[in-house]
């Protein structure tokens, strides 16, 4: 993990670089390096163990299980373009149908080419039912149609896909807020879960994404995708520290079973390999 084992100035420079390379963000890397410096450890191994402990401590402080208690329970998936929302819905639907749940998938991405068809294919693979409409339809109208079916036909879970949107586009954040309002017409508390899907390959920008999405809607959890790649996904450490949003699932591949509940121990150990 560390190239140098003697704790000199060069070691602390290397430490700062290593922390930055985990994508935890420059400010967090600097403050953690300062923290380690003040502790005056005797060996690189001690530093490594200390940091592992710190990360586990931070991430454990915002643990949150994915629990669906309502019937039907509405789960809304949001996030920027290409993060893995549609694929994650397929994976989660599969998990739930295997548990015997009656799942309805609603395709509210009516903007991107073939988005509805892509989700429809996942619904088929997951043995879930599907509601969608043609490209250009108002996403709110599709959502309404889907929720009506879910509430009238005794579904356990409704998984709602939305179009990818950059957190910098205010009108798209407002569109997302309108969708939450529509859910509230059926369940006054709104969606039981609003999951923000983040791509582990993205760096510090994930922190900005989490900030802006969670200030627009009540994000209840994060799905961190593409952890089967080489990116460490360190941005969630800063997100947890500053926004207290728990990671509920991780995506570890492109197949339907590649979704796992978030495990702090495993995640931090993998970070420090």
């Amino acid at each position, binding site marked *: 993990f560390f190239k140098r084992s003697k704790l000199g100035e060069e070691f602390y420079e290397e430490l700062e*670089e290593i922390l*930055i*390379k*985990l*994508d935890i963000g*420059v400010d967090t890397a*600097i403050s953690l390096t300062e923290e380690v410096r003040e502790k005056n450890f005797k060996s690189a191994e001690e530093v490594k163990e200390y940091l592992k402990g710190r990360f586990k401590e931070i991430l454990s402080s915002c643990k949150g299980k994915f629990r669906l208690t309502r019937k039907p329970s509405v789960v809304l998936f949001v996030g*920027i*373009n*290409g*993060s*893995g929302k549609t694929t994650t819905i397929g994976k989660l639907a599969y998990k739930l149908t295997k548990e015997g749940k009656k799942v309805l998938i609603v395709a509210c991405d009516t*903007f*991107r*080419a*073939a988005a509805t*068809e*892509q989700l*429809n*294919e*996942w619904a088929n693979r997951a043995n879930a039912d599907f509601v969608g409409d043609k*490209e250009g339809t108002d996403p709110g109208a599709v959502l309404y149609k889907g929720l009506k079916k879910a509430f009238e036909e005794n579904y356990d879970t409704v998984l709602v896909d939305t179009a*990818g949107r*950059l*957190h*910098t*586009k205010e009108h798209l954040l407002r569109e997302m807020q309108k969708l939450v309002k529509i859910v509230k017409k059926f369940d006054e508390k709104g969606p039981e879960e609003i999951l923000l899907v983040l*791509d582990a*390959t*993205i*760096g*510090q*920008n*994930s922190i*900005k994404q989490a900030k802006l999405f969670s200030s627009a809607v009540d994000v209840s959890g994060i799905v961190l995708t*593409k952890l*089967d*790649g*080489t*990116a*460490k996904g360190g*941005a969630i450490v800063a997100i947890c520290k500053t926004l207290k949003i728990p990671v509920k699932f991780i995506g570890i591949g*492109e197949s339907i079973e590649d979704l796992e509940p978030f495990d702090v121990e495993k995640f931090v150990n993998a970070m420090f390999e």
Partner: protein
Amino acid sequence: LLTGRIKNAVDKLTGAKRLSEKQVNKALREIRLALLEADVDPAVVKSFIKRLREKTLKAEVIKGLNPGETVLKIVYDELTDILGKNPPELKKGVVLLVGLQGTGKTTTIGKLANWLKKKGHSVAVSSTDIRRPAAMLQLKKLAQSVGVKYYDFEGYNDPIQIAREAVKKANEEGVEYLLLDTAGRLHIDEELMEELKKLKQEVNPSEVIYVADAMQGQEALPILKEFHEKLGLTGVVLTKMDGDARGGLALSVKEAVGVPIKFVGVGEKLEDLEPFYPDRMAQRILG
């Protein structure tokens, strides 16, 4: 115009007549952090700052500027120089688009087809992505919106065979550009990287374009290097630049690998493609 760390760096030096070593080091520390915050690779930041230090210590305060502004001008000019020389052009023939999952390859093909068609070229597009659900339909719809030929290989299950037949068709029809889509893949997936190598050998492309998300973090450069090593990239398209990512990968790519950034994606629509402007990128990276 000057915000955050760079303003700090410049203000610290105001009031001096020459660039003293102590002051320069302080300013460069701020600039180093600004580059790291822009997701520039740390090794690239190190070598870049080293070169900057030599230049700024040799430099004299520029007429009309204070020392802080002088340092900033030297940094900006150096950055623009490294980023420069990326003509937004594609050699005629087969253009292969590659990259990680979800970076914007399929959408970028639509945009490039639109760009080339507007310039009066004959274009055809095809997809070798047999993996992602509705990937071929996605490209087909984009092709229809742009108004270019789409070679449909729905139902095929061999990407190499698709590529072979697409090239054959393009040659028969005499199109100038065949834009070929590939499935997103991880650089560490040996089987899929091997498949991509075979695909390249089959079509002998005039361009191998790596499509990278501007928001990619610290793994961005190592991943690109892996693709470059295995395939030999001829260009990069940086997508989702309509967001607020600073795009430090642009500096990492030019400095460490030297592959030109040909285009920038600035939105989800087919017209949202721009040539790469080094001076704008330099300002953006510096924040």
